[in-house]
């Protein structure tokens, strides 16, 4: 048992493309006094930036919020604008969007699993050190990520900030031979994805079960990616248009990012929530590999999120292959979307969790207001809660070990401030 007068853990967060953050933990003796995860949140800036712009612009502008999940931003934006305009793209274009989203899930999850998260379990300071020691494993991860990128390049025009997405559909839809070539790559990727689940399921997982309410989309069929209705682990369901009534963001003094609460309670969105609320919607193969990996039909241990992500990658590769096999080329790459004075809501499942967009437009198609609620803002209070619990439970650890544990607790959620380098600096003050 340690008896420290006062401990302060500081996280100097490295900036990534879409977020800058820091963590401040203060303990007195063995009591956790405060945990503050501060994230400077670009979406606030983007919301202001969107006002007065044309209704066709949000997919391209908001994609720049995040270089890791641009498809999520593009598709939530498209869904919201189409909702406002009363447009429906139909099942053929929807299938292509879902295929594009599978690419992003594969790419984003694989990057996190291999380079950001796995080093925590294998005792490496970062993905680069792990690559030197496990070259073949990291090569497998990079090949799998590349398969995701290839989907994004084929459907979206390029992997980073795809340029082929527009309100109403796409500028161009792929020919059959392009998709056949993609399927060849994906068949190899499925083997890599299955191997990934086997690999991560052998890691050693600290015990932690989170009590938070879980929020995810649930679709009429299939695992939720590109659409669905919000459902909560409490049994609550509500239409996308009521998202703002249930999920309220409020200011906290320590952060320029807003903190979200679901009906006043802390909640979690992302892989654990998606899996727990939709594991019955996975493919038979994904269900079987999840069981082999030791997952039950629900998962509330954030450390095991790496296994859930790996299972979701298996599903995404399979789903991509299924969409390609049943592809019916749309007659036109997009449907006409005409503006009208209205408010629209769009929610999709970004790799990190639920991403909500709301736009108010006038009859001429000018954006009057925009609201974006990204997954990391929704998860922030839950992440702070986890860190506080771990710090309280492991107060006897020395500073270095405690810092590592805090870092791991944050990285479990793959927040936008994830960084493969160690990002905590610890200073201790004695009063």
């Amino acid at each position, binding site marked *: 048992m340690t008896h420290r007068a006062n401990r302060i853990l500081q996280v100097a967060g490295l*900036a990534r493309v879409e977020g800058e953050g820091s963590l401040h933990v203060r303990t007195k003796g063995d009591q956790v006094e405060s945990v503050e995860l501060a994230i400077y949140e670009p979406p606030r800036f983007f919301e202001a930036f969107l006002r007065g712009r044309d209704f066709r612009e949000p997919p391209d502008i908001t994609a720049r919020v995040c*270089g890791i999940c641009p498809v999520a931003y593009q598709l939530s934006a498209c869904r919201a604008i189409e909702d406002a305009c009363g447009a429906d793209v139909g099942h053929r274009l929807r299938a292509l969007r879902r295929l594009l989203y599978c690419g992003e899930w594969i790419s984003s999850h694989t990057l996190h699993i291999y380079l950001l998260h796995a080093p925590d379990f294998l005792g490496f300071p970062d993905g680069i050190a792990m*690559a030197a020691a496990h*070259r073949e494993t990291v090569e497998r991860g990079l090949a799998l990520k*590349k398969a995701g990128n290839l989907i994004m390049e084929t459907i979206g025009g390029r992997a980073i900030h795809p340029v082929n997405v527009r309100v109403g559909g796409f500028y161009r839809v792929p020919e059959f031979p392009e998709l056949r070539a993609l399927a060849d790559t994906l068949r190899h990727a499925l083997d890599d994805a299955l191997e990934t689940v086997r690999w991560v399921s052998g890691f050693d997982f600290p015990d932690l079960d989170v009590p938070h309410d879980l929020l995810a989309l649930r679709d009429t069929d299939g695992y939720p990616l590109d659409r669905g209705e919000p459902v909560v682990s409490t049994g609550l369901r509500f239409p996308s248009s009521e998202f703002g009534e249930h999920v309220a963001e409020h200011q906290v003094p320590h952060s320029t990012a807003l903190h979200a609460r679901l009906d006043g309670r802390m909640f979690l969105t992302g892989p654990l929530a998606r899996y727990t609320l939709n594991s019955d919607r996975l493919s038979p193969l994904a269900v079987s590999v999840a069981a082999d990996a030791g997952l039950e039909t629900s998962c509330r241990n954030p450390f095991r999120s790496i296994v859930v992500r790996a299972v979701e990658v298996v599903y995404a590769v399979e789903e991509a292959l299924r969409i390609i096999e049943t592809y019916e080329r749309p007659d036109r790459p997009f449907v006409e979307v005409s503006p009208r004075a209205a408010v629209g809501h769009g929610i999709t499942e970004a790799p990190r969790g639920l991403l909500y967009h709301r736009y108010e437009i006038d009859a001429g198609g000018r954006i009057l207001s925009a609201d974006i609620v990204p997954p990391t803002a929704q998860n922030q209070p839950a992440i702070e809660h986890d860190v506080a619990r771990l710090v309280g439970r492991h107060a006897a650890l020395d500073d270095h070990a405690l810092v590592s544990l805090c870092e791991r607790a944050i990285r479990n959620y793959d927040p936008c401030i994830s960084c493969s380098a160690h990002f905590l600096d610890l200073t201790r003050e004695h009063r």
Partner: protein
Amino acid sequence: MNSVVIGVGNEFRRDDGVGPAVAREVARRGVPAEISDGDTVRLMETWEDASLVILVDAVRCSPGVDGRWHRTTLPVHGPVASSHGFGIPEAVELAEALGRLPGDLVIFAVEVTDVGFGLGLSPAVAAAVPDVVNAVLAEIRQTS
């Protein structure tokens, strides 16, 4: 000689857009160029088949002079001004660990101060763009 120019940066973060601005101008002259947000793995993927890789990025120096630029063949360590962290050094280290370093890697680093939210380069940084473009094109001519 298979070369690629990669402008690293975020155009929505003012002077962090200097890399992309150079890449655009280079592409306009018919030379293969990409814009990257600096993500470690994606950088590596972009240069996968290139024998000459030229990276253009913003750096923050102390004391710094906006628009002053440097050519180096080693990753610039220390605080990077861009909103994408330390992607370049990491990409180089990861590529090295996996035996995937390009034959030649040249970095042009432009000193900047303002990386706040917004579009457009400050006058001093914008004035440096044509010079850096010329230096990049000369580099390619010299190597090929």
